[in-house]
């Protein structure tokens, strides 16, 4: 359309063309459909970052807790995946306006929760990972470092080449806690074995990049690493792929018991019972016992544990299995403090196991 004449002719053609009537009819139909018809009461909405469900880790564990609560208390939870960071605040607003309970999964929601939660005093927010103050918001943080410690212990005791690796997602505080705990665990295992075990850490910079996860894992394997701990959300799917196709390399999975996925290839999984925390929080809210605040959950509360190692226990010396058990007992009793920040790892005094 180069000049006004063109615009005019086009306008005429547009209105005289049969297709335009069809299109206009469609638009009118879209306009006439009433908004209220869509407002079916959604009671519980779960929000995830761009990684979404199916990560066989963090998001899936949380979703299990919500599903179980839905079954027990008779509601149909809805799930809302954010496509990009610009979506967080608007998705949260939408969810908060259309539900009684909003569950947000992951540290990346902290900024937008701060912005949105105070505007919806009647909605209850349950948030996993992060510390935000609001009267209608309960935050749960997990002592991931304790899970990392157990993973590091298993990896350090198992490794034949005295080289272990970590593939992490984004270096956000909960992941840093995992990695710091892992290094502390490896240190402890090294002390028990009387040798030094090297830890190689690779960060993907994303929780949703399986391809990068795979290539990072391959790089670690090429470096001679024989046990890899993954803390990478959906990126970790690629790490598993790399380990599956490499001989003599083993994996430690995070958050969810995945030992049965690759029996014998996965040494152990760290367990983070976010599902229990969410289940309890939803139950309390529905029974009008909602408590706002920030809560820490760890091994002492039964929220952090290690899988049974059903398929891999026979690959370990009985003494090593005993060591892992002893470490679990120490953590549960609260006698053992694990470093949460990378800077604290060097000062960590490895316990005698």
């Amino acid at each position, binding site marked *: *359309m*180069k*000049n006004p004449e063109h615009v005019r002719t*086009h306008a005429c*053609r*547009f209105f005289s*063309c*049969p*297709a*335009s009537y*069809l*299109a*206009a009819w*469609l638009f009118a*139909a*879209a*306009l006439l*459909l009433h*908004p209220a*018809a*869509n407002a*079916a009461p*959604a009671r519980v*909405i779960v929000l995830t970052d761009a990684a*979404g469900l199916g990560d066989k880790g963090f998001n899936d564990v949380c979703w299990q807790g919500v599903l179980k609560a839905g079954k027990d208390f008779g509601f149909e939870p*809805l*799930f*809302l*995946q*954010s*496509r*990009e*960071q*610009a*979506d967080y*605040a*608007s*998705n*949260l*607003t*939408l*969810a908060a*306006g*259309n539900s009684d309970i909003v569950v947000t999964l992951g540290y990346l929601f902290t900024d937008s929760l701060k*912005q*949105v939660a105070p*505007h*919806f005093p009647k909605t209850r927010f349950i948030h996993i990972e992060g510390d935000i103050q609001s009267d209608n918001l309960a935050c749960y943080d997990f002592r991931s470092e304790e899970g990392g410690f157990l993973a590091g212990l298993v990896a350090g005791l198992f490794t034949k080449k005295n080289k272990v690796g970590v593939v992490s997602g*984004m*270096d*956000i*505080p909960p992941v*840093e806690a995992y990695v710091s705990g892992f290094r502390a665990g490896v240190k402890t295992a090294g002390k028990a074995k009387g040798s030094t075990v090297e830890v190689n850490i690779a960060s993907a*910079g*994303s929780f949703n990049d399986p391809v990068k996860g795979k290539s990072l894992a391959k790089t670690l394997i090429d470096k001679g690493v024989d046990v890899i701990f993954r803390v990478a959300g959906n990126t970790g799917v690629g790490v598993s792929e790399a380990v599956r196709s490499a001989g003599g390399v083993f994996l430690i999975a995070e958050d969810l018991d995945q030992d049965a996925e690759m029996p014998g290839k996965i040494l152990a999984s760290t367990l983070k019972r976010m599902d229990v925390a969410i289940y309890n929080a939803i139950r309390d809210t529905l029974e009008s016992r909602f408590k706002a605040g920030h809560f820490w959950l760890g091994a002492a509360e039964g929220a952090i544990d290690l899988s049974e190692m059903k398929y891999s226990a026979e690959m370990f010396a009985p003494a090593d299995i005993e060591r892992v058990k002893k470490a679990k007992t120490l953590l549960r009793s609260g006698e053992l403090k694990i470093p949460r920040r990378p800077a604290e790892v060097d000062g960590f005094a490895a316990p005698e196991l």
Partner: protein
Amino acid sequence: MRSDWNSSPATLLFALSIGIFLCMALAAAIGARPLDLVQTIWMGAWGTTDAAINTLTKMTPLLLTGLAVALAYRAGLLNVGCEGQLTLGALAGAAVALACASLPSFLLLPLCLVAGGLTGGIWAWPAVVLRRRRGVHEVISTLLLNYLAINICGYLVSGPLGDGSAMGRTPPIPPGAEMPAIFHSGSLHLTAAPLLALLLCFCAYFWLSRTIWGFEARAVGANPEAALNAGISAAKWQTRIFIASGSLAGLAGAFEVAAVHHRFYRAFSPGYGFDGLTAAFLANGSPEWLWLSAIFLSSLRSADKWLQIGLNVSPNFIWVIQAVLLLCVACRQRLGSGFFRLLNRFRTSPAPNEHLEG
């Protein structure tokens, strides 16, 4: 059949309606009620104030990157480097806002936007120089410059310009550099950014169609040799337009920082640069129709959450819907002419009986 049927808005709407029908069929196949789909998309994009705010906010970067692509296209160049130019522009905007935090707002905000635009333009410049001096096709060079830009920015926010956390982001920009809100609704607000973007679009349209320079630029795009014979320097115009195109993409980034995120973070753009290509080609590269294609794309993008909680469909289904709609729009020429052929056959068929036998 009409000769310029291809560029008429009717074709676009016709293609869209075909796409919507296909999507409704898809929805029926996965067990959702077809009409609900259309209704939910509509509601999700424009049904509530919050939704409309969200759609307009998402329109801004698409409009600006779309304009960047369209402008270059009019001068016969293809800028696929918007993603990198946008990312660099965003970082430059944030960095300038942080560095000059003490300036008053009426200076700081424009300065931040200008910095974004300049950086985007500077980043587009090597591509056009390479094209002129070495004959490197700008598609290759701008595409590769994207990776360079994104990774340079990733490095800068993880190190020198970062806020010290492990998140790979800058500190929040000072309030003075934030785009003022012109409309509030609960926890969301609408800034002046979409309006400014529309204004820029109109200026570009006016410049291209009503000024001598705009005519020269278009002449270069239409036929460089003819333009050269008419005494218009193709090389000069292509350089200028390409830098302007980069500036627009950089400006899109600065707008995002000033109006939406209020900081820069790693992996900043979720593909706005490439969506700009889609927006530009949906509008046939004409700035005057760009608002329509940008609104169309942003409506689909912002409706996705409603599809998830309204119809409980997987977010992946939304990508499929978008792809089907876009494909239909992209095939609009054939779809349209096919429709008319059909129509003509009905018109010319002499008698109904004969037609039935045929």
